[in-house]
Each structure stands twice: as C-alpha cells, then as structure tokens.
C-alpha cells in the first residue's frame, strides 16, 4: 500500500476514527486503526466491538492495500511538518513508514486480515436534520449512566416517528428528555437504546461537518449513523428502558421561576465549595431562596435570591454538578424548577417544555 495525502486531512481522519479504539481491551488489535486503500478509495476505521467508526480519507493512492497501525499514529501525524504525508507499507512486512518533509517514522503494525470484520453500515436509512439530533444528544447523553452493572442506563433511548424525535437518558439520579418535531417526520416509529458514547461521537462528527442532514438506520441489533460519508455503527443495548412518562410526576407543589443566568452564576460560585458528597442546599421560604453549601474541610458559602415562593418553607438538597448540568442544558432566560417535597424529584425546564430534566434530591440530615 502506498498513498499520499495532506497532513491535516490525515490527522483529522485518524483522530476521528481513533475515538472508537479501545484502550482497555486485552485484544491488542482493538487499540489499532485500520487503513484500507482499494479501488481508488481510502478509509480509516476503528472498533471496540461495541462501536465502530469508518471515515473516508481523501488521498492519492498509488498502490492498494490495508494495514492496522497503532492509535498513536494520529499524534505523530499531527506533529509532522505541514504539507503532504506519504504512507507506505510493503505487504507481509511488520512496519509502516510515514514520511513528511525530512521527517520519517517506521511504526510497528499488525496485519489487516486480523482486524475484526466491520459492519457494512449501508442499511436503509431515514434522513433527519442534523441540528435536531445534535441538539438532543448535547443535552441528553450526559445524563446517561457510566455504571456498567446497569447496561440499559448506559444508553439513551432514541425514538424517531411521526411525532418527531425523542431522546431520553437517565443514570437513575437524573433523567433528561428532549422532544422535538422534525421537518420530515417518518411515518413509522423506530426506537432503540443506543450507547451514549456512540451518540456523543455522532454529535461530534456531525458538528465538525457542514452537512445539514444525516442518515439513521436502526436494525435488529445495531444503529448506523451516516454523516458526510462517515459511518458510525453502534451495537444496540438490549433491555427495557425505564418508562420516563411514569417517572416524571404530573404535578408539582411549587413551580419556582429563576433567572437562568443568575442561578447558573450562583451555582458556579457555590459549586467551587461543594464537594462530591456535600450537597447544595436550597432553602425556600416566602419570597426567597437561600442557596448554600457546607464543606467540612473548607468552610461555608451561601447566597439568597428573591423568588416567587409561598407556603410552608421547603429545604431540598441536590448534587451541585447534576443541578448545574440541568440548568445549563435548559434554554432561554427563564428557568423553572418544579418541586414537591425534599424527598421527591425536582423538574427543571427552560422557556419551553421540549427539554425536561428531572433530578432526584440528596436526603439532608437535619
């Protein structure tokens, strides 16, 4: 194999694909990226067996072939002198040479034939607006769990149908729901639990490209996203996703309106002090809320805001990072927090109901 391409093009492509490699796996080849050059088309791909990313590479191919090279190749290319990079690999040799200007590297590589077979990813697909999907991923995927003991919660539920697009994720402490209409809503409903990590990659690739739409194909076992020729394929997560409509209470005792920017600033200040286990306390009383935190080691911080609140005083505790994530995910100048009692969830909403963020409190000791 021998090909020549621009340094920036190669670095970006290697970087995009490398995000699907696995650093933790005991299978060595999963920490490598596969370069193939055939029929005048080049591609860089990687997989950790759950997620695979295949990115086309614009290159001038002078000899076909394929080889798997270590992920670190991306870092090397990025630091090479500007201009063209030449990649060369002689069949049956264990090294690949990378050269640009007067710089030259020989990298140990693995045989392409040992690389896992990649899903084709050319299933029939729906076309949806990239902006709608990316907006949903940006605010929902972060609420997914990282706890592998509850696999269902490490994914987000994606539902695309006549009502538009719905995405839901929960780590059991909070739940984020985004519902948006689509300009061309499909007539049939498709639904799947997709690993949050795969969705994050889709959003990243989609944001980097200028494409206005992307293609989504959901099959029995996998979801394929195609953006600008790049294919992201994710294995679907089996199981029953929690019914978010049951988890979100229908009614709240209080619906307190905040200036979103102001609350965000207060939480940023208080958050400096609040450690992972010291909750931020919100003490609501007639006409105001006092937001405070106590850090055993460092000290105490508090700030009061005037709010429209009436009735029995209510004090509720939240994890400050979860709360901030919710406040920042909502849109608009206004933020509403629906509350019931200190042990029931609070519901955050911005200027419309398209995004809802349900957050369980931290039980406070008196």
């Amino acid at each position, binding site marked *: 194999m021998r090909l020549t391409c621009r340094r920036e093009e190669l670095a970006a492509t290697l970087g995009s694909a490398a995000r699907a490699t696995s650093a933790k796996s005991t299978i060595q080849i999963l920490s490598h990226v596969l370069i193939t050059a055939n029929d005048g088309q080049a591609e860089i791909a990687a997989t950790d067996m759950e997620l695979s990313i295949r990115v086309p590479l614009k290159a001038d191919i002078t000899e076909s072939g394929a080889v798997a090279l270590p992920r670190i190749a991306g870092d090397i290319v990025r630091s090479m002198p500007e201009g063209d990079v030449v990649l060369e690999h002689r069949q049956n040799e264990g090294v690949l040479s990378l050269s640009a200007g007067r710089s030259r590297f020989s990298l140990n590589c693995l045989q392409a034939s040992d690389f896992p077979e990649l899903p084709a990813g050319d299933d029939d697909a729906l076309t949806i607006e990239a902006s709608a999907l990316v907006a949903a991923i940006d605010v929902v995927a972060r609420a997914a769990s990282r706890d592998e003991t509850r696999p269902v919660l490490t994914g987000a539920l994606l539902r695309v149908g006549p009502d538009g697009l719905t995405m839901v994720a929960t780590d*059991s402490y*909070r*739940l984020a729901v985004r519902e948006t209409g689509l300009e061309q809503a499909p007539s049939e409903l498709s639904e799947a639990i997709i690993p949050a990590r795969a969705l994050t990659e889709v959003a990243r690739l989609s944001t980097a490209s200028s494409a206005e739409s992307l293609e989504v194909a959901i099959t029995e076992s996998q979801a394929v996203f195609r953006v600008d020729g790049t294919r992201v394929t994710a294995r679907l997560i089996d199981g029953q996703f929690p019914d978010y409509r049951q988890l979100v209470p229908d009614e709240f005792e209080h619906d307190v309106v905040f200036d979103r920017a102001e609350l965000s600033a207060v939480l940023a200040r208080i958050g400096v002090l609040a450690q992972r286990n*010291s*909750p931020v306390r919100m003490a609501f009383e007639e006409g105001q809320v006092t937001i405070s935190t106590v850090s055993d080691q460092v000290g105490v911080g508090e700030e009061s805001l005037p709010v429209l609140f009436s009735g029995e005083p209510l004090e509720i505790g939240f994890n400050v990072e979860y709360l901030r994530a919710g406040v920042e995910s909502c849109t608009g100048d206004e933020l509403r927090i629906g509350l019931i009692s200190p042990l029931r969830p609070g519901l955050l909403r911005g200027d419309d109901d398209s995004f809802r963020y349900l957050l*369980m409190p931290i*039980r406070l*000791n008196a």
Partner: protein
Amino acid sequence: MEARPTVLHADLDAFYASVEQLLDPRLRGRPVAVGGGVVLAASYEAKRVGVSSAMAGWRAKELCPDLVFVKGHFSEYQRLSKQVMSILGDYTPAVEQVSIDEAFLDIAGSRRLFGEPDEIATAIRERVQGEAGLPISIGAASTKHLAKIASQVAKPDGLVVVPPDREREFLDPLPVRLVWGVGPATQARLEARGVTTIGELAKESPERLAALLGGGAATKLRGLANNDDWRRVRSRGRARSVGAQSALGRTTPTPELLAEVLGHLADRVATRLRAKGRAGRTVTVRVRFTGMRSITRSITVRDPVSATLTLREISEALATQALADHPRERTITLLAISVSNVTELPESQLELPAPGGDPNRAGSPTAVARLEVDRSMDAVRTRFGRAAVGYAAVALSERGAVPDEFRELAERDV
C-alpha cells in the same frame, strides 16, 4: 504509682427500686420489687430477706410476703440517671459510665478545684441525695477494681475510701466473690479448695490456681486479688458499635423463630442507631449453640444501614448461613446482632425508581421508603411508647418476661 485514691466508683443503691420509692412515698421503707413474673430489681428492704433480681415472682413473695410489686417507670430511670451522671460530670471530665446506675470517675486532676477524694465523694453523695433524691454509694481507691470493691463494701448509702498504704489490709479479709469475674461457680470451686478471702486468693500459687480455673482466668483473678489493675478511667466517645442479644433457652432454630427473634433485635438495634442519627456498614450475627459454643458471621455492605427491615434481612441471611455451616447443631440458646463501622447517617443521593436498581443502596426507593416508615414509627413511639407500633411479626409475638424498655436501659449506649 498515684499515691492517692483518685479513682471513684459511684453506684446508685438499688436504683430502680429507689426510684419507685422516690416517686411513690407510700413505698418508702417497704420491700419493693420492680417487675412481676420475674424480679427485675429489689429494694434493700427486700434484699435483706433474700429477694434478688432475676428471681421468680412467686419465690420472692414466698421469701417476703409483704413484697410490693410495681411496674417500672422506665423513662424516669433514664431521666434520673442522666441527672446523676451530669452531677458526676461537674467534678471531672473523666467520667466512665458503665451502666445506667454506675460510673467510674478519675479525679486526679480535680484536687485543686474540689479537694481531697473523700471531700469530693462526700460532696457528690450530698448533691445526688439532695438534687435527685437518691442514695448513692461511693468507693475511692487507686484502681478501678479496688474502687468498685470499696463501693460494694460501702453499700447501702455509704462511702469507703481506701488509702493506698492500707490496700492489702482492706482487701485481705474480704470474700472472693467481690473480685471482678468471680461468679457463683468460681466462688464454689475456690471455697472447695479453702480459698474464701481475697487475701488467700492473692497468696495462692499460680500453678494450683491454673489447675483449678484454667490459665487465663487464674492469671486474671490472681492479678486482681493483688490489686494489679492498670485499666484507666475512659470517658467514652461515641459508640463504635451498637448491638442487642436475646437468650432463648434451648430452641430449635426454625426460619420462623429466626425471623421473629432477629426482627425483634434488628428493631432494637436500628432504632437506637436512628435515634443518634447514625448508621453502620458492618453487620455481625452471633449464634450460640448448647454448651456455650458460639459462632459469628458478618458482612460489610456498601452503604451504611439504619433501616430496621434492611438490618433484619441482612441478619437473617447471616444467621441462616451460620446455621447451614453447622448442620449438626440442632438447638441454639442465643442470637445477637451487632452493627459496627458506625458513622453519621450519610446524606444520600436518592434514585429514581428505575428497574434494575439495588434495593440495598442507601438512595434506592426501597431504602428511602423503609427509612421513612421507620422514622414515622420512631416518632409515634417517642410520643406514645414503644409498644404503640411495631412490625407485625415482631409486635404480635410476646417473647420473654423482660419488657423491652428494661433491655433498652441495659443496652443503652452510655
């Protein structure tokens, strides 16, 4: 070695009975027993004619036909105990409360403020009598063991100070049963060999004593008889573990019995933990078989436990495991639960009721619901008494003649 008798042992005389006589003047001067089926405590008037605690009610009545039985006023015991302990605390911060009615005090640092040991002891006795209305006996000596013996000698309502240069003179003629750790069985064995006084015990050859009582016990008792006691008075910090046990007689450990007894014990232990705003991660269950052989099983869980039902489930699993490991043991005589690794009840991040959650996590909907039920129950009990509400399996059974309030006082973390 401290040259002054700076360790005091203060012991309220016939505490429960004295409280009853304090509350009801008609009982004063008369033989009184707290209890009914079983004597839980007896006044000096009753003790004089041979009535003792743990004696069957009919037997006590036989010995003392005038005996008046009263039901206990448990909250009063607690209140008066607190009052007395706080008086003791006025004389030194080093107060080691060992039960509801007795405490050790180290007054080595109090001399300049309050005077010599006999002056301090006299002042304490006057204040306890004057402010709480109760008789208290005090022993003062250079060690805890000797101070405790002195307070027993001082009873009722007396003071004995043992000057350091007269310790042997004081100890030698006293009967061996006053030595800590000498119960009726050991006393009988010693007396059979002609050892009746502490002086004789102190002089006994270590070999002969070891042959009689076993090596460990022999060394310990001989040491105490020689007044070797290096234990210090420690004012306790917060309890590091909370436990409760139930003696069962000889019983077949059916699942129903385990559920009932462990349910009862879990209720007591968890209630006490919650009362202090605490929870523990390590649960230990002890099962005693016939012949005093006992085994323990313990587990350390991720999140601290303070809910009654959770503690009960964990305890039942441990006890079931312990019994399964000893299939040849057919009868058990005691079950005990203890919770250690105790911390403040954590401020837990609560979880949404999503499927697949672990109910033992502190923030799970199950754990939250259990704790809320427990707290409501605690509130009802505080207001209307312990018997007002309980978990069905436990509340509906009537185990033992000793009321729970009495156990609570004995187990209370002081």
